[in-house]
């Protein structure tokens, strides 16, 4: 269970998050929707531990452990995963090498034995096939020369390999055509289970047709202004954020 209490954060002295309260129950899919500039990406970066953001108040705990004192890699080991809105290209680092390093680093930190090369490759091929990630992509440097859709699929593949408890998907639908969107959504849905929690951050309802949320939150002006069921997302699609933003 991830508990966020009164989370406030700033970047370059500018307050972005102004007191977020959010409890993510195990096994559920939470969606966060909100207009541009409401703090959606800031929330995801703060949760993943990006240094540039300064947490000015509040707390975040994962199964009782203080997340905010952890380095990004410790958060990953604890079970947090952020699928980036704009995945980073890493020239010179072969995708397979990167995945093996990441998987084994996380396993080591979790007190599990590292995967031997054969077991690792078997697992990788299995998950890659589900997401339509080709062998060629795995041989290329991480994300270099990948299309937008390939990058997003690679994010979901990393998620599948790292087996997190809490997965945050930051605008995973941006830049995806409908076919790519379906593949990504299927990949996410395949991972759903009682011990997996998702926080799906999106601008549009469209993604939520494919990854159906249990709970929908509306983020505006750095605060959660409304929480409801899946119907809330549809409502927003019809009416826009204007009414809610005014109410906030």
């Amino acid at each position, binding site marked *: 269970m991830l508990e966020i209490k009164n989370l406030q954060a700033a970047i370059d002295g500018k307050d972005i998050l102004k007191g977020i309260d959010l409890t993510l129950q195990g096994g559920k899919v939470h969606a966060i929707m909100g207009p541009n500039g409401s703090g959606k990406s800031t929330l995801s970066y703060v949760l*993943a*531990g*990006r*240094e*540039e953001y300064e947490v000015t108040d509040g707390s975040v705990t994962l199964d009782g452990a203080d997340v905010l004192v952890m*380095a*990004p*890699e410790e*958060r*990953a*080991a604890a079970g947090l*995963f*952020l699928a*980036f809105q704009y*995945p*980073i290209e*890493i*020239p*010179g*680092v072969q995708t397979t090498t*990167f995945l093996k*390093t*990441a*998987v084994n*680093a*996380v396993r080591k*930190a979790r007190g599990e034995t590292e995967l031997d090369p054969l077991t690792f490759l078997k697992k990788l091929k299995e998950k890659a096939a589900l997401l339509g990630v080709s062998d060629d992509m795995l041989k290329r*440097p991480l994300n270099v020369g990948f299309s937008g859709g390939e990058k997003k699929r690679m994010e979901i593949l*990393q998620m599948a390999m*790292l087996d997190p408890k809490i997965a945050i998907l930051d605008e995973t639908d941006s830049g995806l055509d409908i076919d790519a969107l379906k593949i990504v959504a299927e990949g996410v849905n395949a991972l759903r289970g009682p011990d997996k929690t998702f926080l799906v951050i999106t601008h549009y309802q469209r993604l939520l047709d494919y990854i159906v949320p249990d709970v929908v939150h509306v983020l505006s002006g750095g605060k959660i202004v409304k929480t409801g069921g899946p119907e809330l997302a549809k409502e927003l699609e019809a009416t826009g954020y204007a009414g809610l933003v005014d109410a906030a």
Partner: protein
Amino acid sequence: MNRYRPDSAHAFLQQPGDGADFRASALEQLKERGLPTPKLERWKYTNLLAFEKSGAAPAEKARFQGDVVRLPWLQQNSRKLIFVNGHLILGDAKLTLAGQGLDHRPDTAPMDDQADGMLWALNTAFYADGPCITADESCSGQTFEIIHVAQGADAPLLSSPRSVIEVLPNCQATIIEQWMGTGTGVVHSNHALRISVGQNAQLNHIRLQNDRIDRSVLSSTHVRLARDARYHCTFQTTGAATSRQEFWIELHGQAADATIHGAQLMTGKQVMDTTILIEHQAPNCTSNQTIRNVVDGHASGVFQGKVHVHKIAQKTDGYQLCNTIMLSPTAEMNTKPELEIYADDVKCSHGTTTGKLDETSLFYLQSRGIPQAEARRLLLMAFVASVFDNLPDDIQAACMAQTQDFLSLIKGED
């Protein structure tokens, strides 16, 4: 007091040469002009004070204290040469020693049309030996591995190997130079290398320098390329307190190509300097300089690369790129790209970047559970590896192992 006065006598000059005329005249030049000082434009960032003040005496031939078979040879089928302090050591019979083609003829051609050719003159005054290789049809395609060992003794030594490499028309050869050090005691190396590549011939030149940290390794490389000739140099520098390598490359025949890819990896108080002058003296030639530096601690890196396009050299394609990653706030990097173009139909580009390791990339890797130190290592390996892309696998592996060793030493911001 100005310690760089050109007339200051220093230890090297008190050594008698062997009396040969060419040595006497080199000594004469040295006495007149002294070693290069930071007052010279091309020596602004690297000073030879430690070298000059060490009082090193020309090294005599000495017995190699190591085991030649256990030296880090990279290829099984190469012809192997070992020089200890600039003297040929005939090693173990188990090694294929390239005795053939070795020559001790004095190499006396002057190099004084370069304003600061004093290191060449110093080498001329004192060299005893060095690889002298002629790649003809009988050994075309052959790899020559040359290990230069700087072996310390009680008193400071000056090692002055002189290499002469000639690749005859239509032939191809690979030279692998490794510079390493053994024993305590200072040995400064001052290498002079003359290369000529004949028409439609190719020389692949690999230089790995990993000498001990209390030494200087200086080298002057002069390359002359005939029509359609290719010179491909890849280097990696991780050793020595002061390292300076100069390349003077003349693209003398049409459609010749010179490519230099290299990495300088430094930490502590190391100084590493690569200074390149490429002269496009004929039409349709291409040149490419791609240099990557990693600078840690209080180290100081220098890259000076000049492309000089003569008036006749139309359709020149000259490329120059120098990227540097600084790992500490006290690190220093000086880059000076220069283009001097007299022809009017040429394509020349240069670029340099100097910055920190990309924070976003680092965060991305960390967010995947890779510990920060490991993430930095991965990114730096990738940064350096790109200059070794075109090398054969075994040599590439050696370069990466050397990079790995360097990365285990870096301190970063602490």
